[in-house]
């Protein structure tokens, strides 16, 4: 059994009387590329916000990289929030400069390479970027950080096919080059399921199924099929 990087034991998050997360028990293995799957409102984004300490559990125990989530732990996490935007008044070059100053372990050289492969140059203004371009910018800034944990909330949603393919290619390169644990939430299952080696299926704030993707395939078929079985 490989080392566990994120461990949730009976975690709850209440908003008023509603449980956004309830009885959540999850273990994410080190160096896995884990899919966080489930319908809207199942608790995927809340779980990711908990990992980055932005949301505190109402009950239960959550550890990330052997620590309780807090801003100190975030030095080791590259996080792409859902619907992430960058400062409109920046150009790509300024974004890289800004990230270099802000993030420990930010690899500016790698950021430039990624921007180039994403078709973004230093002078491109953020304002006026298409959604796909801005998604590529945000992802490049995440992938350029040398950190043990990468958390991407919906990196493929609402962006065009070419941008998606570029992002997938960049992710595969990144997985080949470094030992990093990666969490990705997505609704684009058919297109992306071949990238994952671990999966967690969320429903009503809890993990209803999780495990090694190849084993799940052997037992129950494709992730898309399992998704239909669970939520259809």
């Amino acid at each position, binding site marked *: 059994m490989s080392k566990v990087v994120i461990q949730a034991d009976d975690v709850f998050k209440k908003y008023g009387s509603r449980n956004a997360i309830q009885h959540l028990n999850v273990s994410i293995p080190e160096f896995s590329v884990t899919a966080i799957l489930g319908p809207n409102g199942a608790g995927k984004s809340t779980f990711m916000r908990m990992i980055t300490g932005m949301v505190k559990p109402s009950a239960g125990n959550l550890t990330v990289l052997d620590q309780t989530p807090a801003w100190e732990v975030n030095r080791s996490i590259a996080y792409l929030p859902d619907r992430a935007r960058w400062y409109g008044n920046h150009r790509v070059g300024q974004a890289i400069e800004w990230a270099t100053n802000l993030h420990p372990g930010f690899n500016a050289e790698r950021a430039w390479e990624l921007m180039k492969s994403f078709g973004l140059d230093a002078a491109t203004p953020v304002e006026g970027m298409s959604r796909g371009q801005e998604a590529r910018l945000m992802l490049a800034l995440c992938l350029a950080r040398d950190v043990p944990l990468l958390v991407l909330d919906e990196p493929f949603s609402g962006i065009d096919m070419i941008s998606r393919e570029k992002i997938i*290619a960049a992710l*595969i390169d990144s997985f*080949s080059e470094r030992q990093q644990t990666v969490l990705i939430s997505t609704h684009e299952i058919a297109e992306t*399921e*071949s990238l994952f*080696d671990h999966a967690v299926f969320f429903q009503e704030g809890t993990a209803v199924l999780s495990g090694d993707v190849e084993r799940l*395939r*052997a037992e129950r078929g*494709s*992730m898309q099929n399992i998704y239909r079985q669970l939520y259809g």
Partner: protein
Amino acid sequence: MEEVQIGGMRFTLDLSQPLYEQVLDQVRSSIAKGEIALGSKIPSVREMAQALKINPNTVMRAYQELERDQLTETRRGQGTYITTDSARVEQIRYRAAEQAIQEFLGKMASFGFDAQAIEKLLRKYGGEST
């Protein structure tokens, strides 16, 4: 998934089955069919992962199994090469034939044909070689 060609090999992956076994089987069968020459270099893990759009760990696992099977060898800093041992490839070819025959026999049995009936049919449809 549609067919992908890389390094002289052809792949069609089915997402409802474990991918590692499919990559392994399809490389093996490319070797058995002679689609890739003995001693030739196969794509790197990264190239294969990019072409198939799959997790590099999955490719790595398949490559490790090929190496354990002595069908490939990794030369440090140079990449992975198909074995030059033709006897080893011949073994794989026979193993593939065995597997194909087992599948064929199983299917025929499910249609209710016994060995004798199968032989008859083979003679009828399989040409004059028998």
